């Protein structure tokens, strides 16, 4: 039982990170119907910007009070990563809008390679470790098993990740449901041309969608950095694929679906590693995706596409 609770906590933490990245995929798909394969690399860039900011603050300026440092890192990472997201959209996707369906997909893959190689060349290919920053936690359960005592640990780091994710999700839901920008995004999702005829600047709305996705991905990047303590130029690939899987699992285009999918993928991975073999955790995650898609082709919370006749 204790082991199960511990895995649940670990799974939710990992799932939060996947969920935050998955939102970027699902929003972009919702509004322009393309899979932004460079999104995983935006997450990686966010994580590198967080690392750079963190090192500059602690070594150059000598900041020591961790909460302030992390807050500044968070804000700087969100701002700069958003700028990256905006630029990628402006350079690689907007000129191809209205082109054939595969064109943006191909540039997205190209953009992904460009970003990876850019970071590899400028930052080097080696791992970038930072010492663990947030240590300790609380014990929420204790029990005995045949192997001895087992304690269920909820670390402060995990608390921070889950709390930040919950806060971001609340803010994000408010933004989508209550603000004019959110309404414009939903309107563009349904009928871009009609939204334009009502005075909505569609290009700007799409740009802001990329910016929002990038900002959430940068938060995920910072969390990844703090949780694992090591990043390299290639982390965007696997995290991106997992988050994309999460978005599809939850029903691509659906925001709660992306979060749910992220949590599920995180849980599947952690439970599989915990109870079966760690080598096959990715296989397990993708197998579940395949099974779900066979029975629910539009994902868990996705709306089935009704063909208009």
């Amino acid at each position, binding site marked *: 039982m204790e082991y199960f609770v511990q895995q649940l906590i670990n799974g939710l933490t990992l799932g939060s990170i996947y969920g935050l990245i998955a939102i970027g995929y699902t929003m972009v798909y919702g509004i322009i119907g393309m899979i932004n394969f460079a999104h995983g690399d935006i997450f990686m860039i966010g994580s590198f910007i967080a690392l750079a900011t963190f090192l500059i603050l602690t070594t150059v300026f000598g900041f020591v009070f961790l909460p302030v440092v992390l807050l500044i890192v968070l804000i700087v990472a969100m701002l700069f990563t958003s700028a990256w997201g905006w630029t990628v959209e402006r350079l690689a996707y907007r000129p191809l809008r209205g082109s054939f369906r595969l064109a943006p997909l191909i540039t997205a893959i190209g953009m992904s390679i460009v970003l990876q190689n850019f970071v590899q060349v400028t930052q080097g290919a080696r791992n970038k470790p930072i010492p663990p920053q947030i240590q300790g936690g609380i014990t929420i359960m204790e029990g005995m098993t045949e192997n001895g005592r087992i304690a269920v640990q909820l670390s402060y780091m995990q608390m921070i990740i889950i709390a930040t994710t919950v806060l971001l999700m609340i803010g994000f839901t408010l933004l989508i449901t209550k*603000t004019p920008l959110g*309404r414009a995004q939903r*309107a563009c999702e*349904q009928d871009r041309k009609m939204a334009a005829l009502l005075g*909505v600047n569609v290009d700007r709305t799409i740009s802001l969608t990329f910016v929002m996705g990038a900002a959430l991905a940068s938060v995920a990047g910072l969390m990844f950095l703090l949780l694992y303590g090591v990043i390299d130029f290639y982390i965007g690939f696997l995290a991106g694929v997992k988050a994309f899987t999460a978005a599809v699992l939850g029903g691509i285009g659906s925001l709660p679906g992306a979060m749910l999918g992220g949590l599920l993928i995180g849980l599947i991975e952690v439970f599989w590693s915990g109870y079966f073999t760690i080598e096959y955790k990715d296989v397990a995650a993708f197998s579940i995706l395949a099974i779900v898609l066979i029975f629910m082709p539009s994902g868990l919370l996705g709306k089935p596409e009704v063909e208009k006749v």
Partner: protein
Amino acid sequence: MVSASQSAAPAAAPMTGEQRKWDIDPVLTVEHLTMRFGGLVAVNDLSFNVGRGDITALIGPNGAGKTTVFNCVTGFYKPTEGRTVMRHGAGLLQDMVDEVTAGGLRSIRDGDKAVFLLERMPDFEISQFARVARTFQNIRLFGGMTVLENLMVAQHNTLMTASIYTIGGLIGLPGYRVAEKAAKEKAVYWLERTRLIERADDPAADLPYGDQRRLEIARAMCTEPHLLCLDEPAAGLNPRESAELNELLQFIRAEHATSILLIEHDMGVVMEISDHVVVLDYGVKIADGDAIQVKNDPKVIAAYLGVDDEAEIDIPEVRKDLEEVEQAASDEGSAS
């Protein structure tokens, strides 16, 4: 494509000596508008005016190019040739029109007067600045959003400014709250006018057909247009709904200083409420005048109203026209 009888047609519109109202104070001028799709000429050298405060009807047989004209005016298409001028403020404002055209500008503003060249503007600015709104023949609501939200999207730019690009809206600035309240009030006003207030929180797609048509008009009106373009607003409505629509349009014209340009097939609606009727056939204007002039125009009767109606074509003048049209049609047939 254009037969002899049709190219000669514009001259056949009754030209009286007096200047007509819509030529003196037009809100919209369409000049030499041509739209080609590859080899197909959908609209050919079309010019007409929409008078300020008038209800102007654009009629014509199926495929005459009416919707194409709408699409050009509202920025859905970029016309191949021609100029469409939208005017805010009374009169022809000829100086401003010349200045905008010569200067390669999109628009020019002078106090509360302004002139816009619609063919040079991106689609969203046509609604935002030139204040032209439209509805569609096949209704284009945001089906997944509620009725109220549909009307809020139409007030996007006001709210966007008030919320300082959304940030203010997220943290609930007082300025944004006031703006949002005003926007909701305006939406409620139009929902009451269109008798949709009961359905405000239902998804727009769940509304019955007639309600969806009225909602589209309400949504267009929420953008506070100077010109409202309605593409077959009475299509599929029963006679009672049709009469209500007439009332709504009259109300919009009277109370909101909005000029209306409509495409309509229902001759009852057209003749009852239009101040000015423009008739198209094969992308060419064949008549232009008030409802009575147009109704009695032999070209219109021949081309549109009564080709196969025995009683109508018994007028000798019409028979002559009809023969011309038939001749042209057979010429075309033999040519192709």
